[in-house]
């Protein structure tokens, strides 16, 4: 069959080279992200205007329409934000700072939701989520610290259009009616300082300790005067 053995040797050699080339050209599935999670943003919103602090300057600027309040975010997990008295600031807002009762804590990658919440079905404004073991929310008013973890709602939201995921926190929980149906999100207490602590993990068991302080403004009215 192979009368020309020299030709066949050449063929075999080139075939081997070709197979080697193909092997290197193969493109497997995208490998899992093994980076360690970092803290990107802490955002408080009443759904009409957000206030946020962020560690990524390009992520949101004044030109982009965000309210960036003073404060800092350390990617390693520490953040501090003082919510503004929105009435004082704009004089025309429909709600004041204590209405910024919905917090999104954005981290850089998808977390293991079980490290955030023990409730996988209640990630909804209509219900509450129980914080995972180890997560603690403390409210301090006039120097008196109160553990409000059990009243608060801590949910996990794995979706974010620019990557990462959120912890969705209602620090004062929600108001429900007699049937347990959602009525509204409870407002922040005026001048209260909330400390959110805990350690969350990603799917690679990388940890991110969170230590987030949010201070509510003194205004307690729901409508600006």
């Amino acid at each position, binding site marked *: 069959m192979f009368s020309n053995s020299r030709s*066949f040797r050449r063929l075999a050699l080139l075939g081997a080279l070709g197979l080697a080339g*193909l092997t290197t050209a193969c*493109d497997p599935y*995208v490998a899992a992200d093994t980076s360690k999670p970092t803290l990107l943003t802490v955002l408080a919103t009443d759904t009409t205007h957000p206030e946020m602090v962020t560690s990524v300057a390009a992520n949101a600027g004044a030109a982009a329409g965000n309210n960036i309040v003073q404060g800092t975010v350390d990617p390693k997990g520490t953040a501090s934000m003082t919510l503004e008295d929105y009435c004082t600031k704009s004089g025309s807002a429909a709600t004041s700072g204590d209405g910024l009762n919905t917090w999104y804590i954005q981290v850089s990658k998808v977390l293991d939701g079980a490290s955030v919440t023990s409730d996988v079905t209640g990630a*909804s404004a209509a219900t509450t989520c129980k914080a995972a073991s180890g997560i603690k929310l403390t409210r301090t008013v006039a120097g008196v610290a109160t553990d409000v973890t059990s009243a608060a709602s801590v949910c996990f939201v794995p979706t*974010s*259009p*620019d990557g990462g995921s959120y912890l969705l926190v209602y620090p004062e929980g929600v108001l429900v009616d007699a049937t347990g149906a959602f009525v509204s999100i409870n407002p922040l207490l005026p001048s209260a300082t909330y400390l959110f602590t805990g350690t969350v993990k990603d799917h690679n068991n990388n940890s991110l300790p969170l230590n987030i302080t949010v201070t509510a403004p003194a205004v307690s009215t729901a409508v600006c005067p």
Partner: protein
Amino acid sequence: MRKKLLRFLWSAPLALLFAAGPASAQTTGSVIGVITDASTGKPVAGALVVATSSNLQGEQTAVTDGSGSYRISQLPPGQYKLAVQLEGYKPAERSDITIRLDKTIRANLAVVPEAVQMEEQVVKTGIAPVINVGSAETGTVISKEFVANVPVGRDFQSTAVVTPGAQADTYGISFNGATSPENSYILDGQNVTDPAYGVLGSNILTNFVEEVDVKSGSFMPEYGRTTAGIINVVTKSGSNEFHGSVFGNITPGFLSPASKQVARNGEAIGSETAFNHGGYIADFGAEIGGPIAKDKLWFYVGFAPVLNRQVTRRFYQAAQEDPNNKGSALLDPTTGQAVTKEIAGTSKYYNDDNTGYQLTSKLTYLFNENHSFTAAFYRAPSNRSYLLYPNATESAGWAAYKENPNDLIGRYTGKFLDKHLVLEAQGGWHHQTTESDPKSYTVNGTAIDQKTTSEVIWQRTHDLQQFFTGISSDCNVTADGFHPCTVSQFRTGGFGFLETLKLDRYSGKLSATYLMELLGHHAWKAGIDVERSSYDHDKTYSGGAIVRERTTALTKSGTYRFQDYRQFAVASPDGSAIDTLGGTYALHVTSITNSRAYYIQDSWSILDTLTLNAGVRFETQDMYKQGSDLTNFNIGDSVGPRIQAIWDFTGQGRGKVSANWGRFYEALPLDMGDRSFGGETQVRDYRNCTGIINPNGDLTQVAGSPRLCPVMVGSASPFGVTYASYSTPVVPVAPDLKAQYVDMFGGGIEYEILPDFSVGVTYEGRRLGRVVEDMSTNDGVNFFIANPAESKPFLVNAAGDKVVTSCPTNDCTKVDPSGGYSTDSVTGRTYFAKEPAPERKYDGITLELKKNFSNHWLGQASYTYSSFRGNYPGLFRTENAQLDPNILSEYDLPSLLPNKNGPMPGDRPHQIKLYGAYVWDLSKRLNVTTGAAFSARSGTPINVLGAHPDYGNSEAFILPRGSGGRTPFNTQLDVLGSIDYVIAQPYTLKFTVSVFNLLNQQETLNVDQNYTFDTVQPIVGGQCASRSGASSKDPVAGVQADCPDMKYLTTTDGRPVTPNKNYGRPAIAPAPTYGYAPPAFQVPLQVRLGVALTF
């Protein structure tokens, strides 16, 4: 001396081989070779080589040059005889030389001096070549013998699937990962690609076809306007004798077994393909060709009606309540699906009738040996009416349309300068029309005028009795609140989108081929290729708009919410008013594009064993709306170099090593001109409805129709304004726009291990280098056309419809194609959405064995292993069948850009294709043919998809592409048997039986990939443990278990998502606008019976 001479003669046939192809033409082939003195082995000059064939008018001749070389070009495909005449030598000839379409074969001959006394008086007849040592082009030539003896489809497009690396997609046959609308289709040298959408414009039966040349990649610069493959077809011509046939083929449905039912989990409307209930596929016709004047003027004409009836059975079914878990559905422990009971008396069969005819005709005139002219005309009108959506009222689900493609072609060929110069000139007109032609229907006793009634899409789950009166009591809601008969994604009202298309392409080509010697043999070819295409389009939405129920339809205040989400209209600048021109904003636009190409290429035989093919193609294209002063784009810098190197490592034409690289540009179809530059603006609004919603959706008489519910005003609307405009009448184009291109590269090794039988290994790589797309950085409100990740920022005027270079009024907008600020709909946070660079990478290696037809049999076997990854599919989206070349939704929605990278829809790691046939000569008058085709292939990736609030379903990749797993591996065996009986020369009667899917495999081909119909955002980088969740008995639970993040998925308004209970289960793939939807399962066994009388 004699021994040496005989050895030389024996080796001569082995030198018969393919050689450099570029000098051949798109409708013919060539033969080249060297004539040598058999006694000395030295080349002889001045020998006359004469080629004759029944497919050739007269004869074509050439005289060998000083190196003994000759070349005869412009030979129609077919069987040839070569004769050599030279004074002092005995006449020599060899027959059975097969000229293939657009290929050049090498036929070396040795002539014996008259003075030499030996047994061999003529050179032995050679065998058909199998190795193309003159080109690195990839693909397959599908001969008449192959089509006649192997079970394949009845039209030329379907036969192309035999090519290694080819597979069927929603719109045709795709090659090496590209989408089929990227192909170029050439019929008798004319581009018959649909000018608006890139799909095949004119398809014809194989009876009328002489040969199909499938080029799957790396072709030379004379070919262009494609980033995929070329299907190059030449139809039959006349001859000096009258030949023809009368034929008929039918695939009767009653010979097919029942199809597997597509069980929509718990859905009250069941449907199944019922081809065995009166369906058929049939064609019958006649063809004849012959001389009007022998060797001067030939004619060929063919005519065949084509009839196709598919059948769908639709019925109502009631889910059964679980006696042990009242209020819940009883589940089948095997399938995990709800157990249903068909409701008696509800079964109905719907015929999908597609009827038409094909007419083909050709005149071939030979002025003299050096000058010829061919004129051809094709026409293939058809009408089709069918149930497009079973999950709909008949008025909304029934579609009908008419199509009519026509082609007129004229071609001149001339040889000059002692045949060293060949000129070809061709002109043609491709014309096709399509017209929506929906019929009127009565639903619940009410006549629905499809053209004036809005279509309503009911996104949520509803009881069937909400839509139809007189539903069986089996559907009554039980005391425990169980709803036995529910439907979702149900359509009512009118048909929706209505249109009339008229497409025209005027084309002209001129080329010159010049043969010369300079450090070897050269075949230079240069040419120009111009096309002018127009797209005349009338379009409207029945009733003025398509209305869609929101998944959050029932609001806290108890009202139902709907959206006019498809509506041609113009909104006032403040969004408070709308101009729908009386409710039906019909658009009429004519868009035009001019495409010009210039190329030069050379095939340089440097040494006997080394050939270098190189060239470059330069293309330009503009596009504009007829009557407009604005040329929307004018791309003039598309330079496509191409190079091939071929080394015959055996030195005997028995093997080759080849490598190739080339850049291939797309010609943008006119869909962009029509939709982006033609004044198509959309306005969307929300409607709040209270009370009972009547599903008929009739604008004129039905109170409670969602279409009549009040529009939400101003900021109360989720849009923030009453009427939200989308897009502008003219979408601005980045000033630095460049054409989309693909780089093709590869190489191969091929070896002829036995005469006529070769084995080869080929690597093919494809890289999408640049994309043209419409983009938006504000989630689909304003658009621009650009090259993602490449175009530079530019300014547009205040209206957003025109690019400006300066802005003295300071009211312009800077558009940055690299990205823009968008709003996270979950948090309200503004973020910078970076537009990702398009990626599409295909790498495939093919092991192929080929046996040309000789010694009674032919064969072709291939195994392809490939990897196909990326984030940009091509010219259509498989997920929802959106065919909008270069204006897909891929870059419309910044919020949905993530997670698109992964295994692409055409990723099938393993493909095996086996074809073979054997002809048994039982007697001089009777022979029997047996043929078979076997294919096996991996399944395709399954995605986890969600919806976008404005764009609809299947737009969001919740998890990275392909995370759901893969559809099952599937196989199919087809067989063919035929009997040829010669009644009396030249009359032969042939009976053929082809059985497709002999083993009646009905494996799943397509599954429902919509995890939810809720609006969601992607879980960026979400990981799955095994990527097989969708293959579980309960795919929803399977994906949730395999991909733990899914348990936390919420809608954009913060609710837990409602999974689609049919996710991951077999489903008919999204249907193309025209054509047939890819089925859920393999088509059951079908038997095709054929009879033909040929003469």
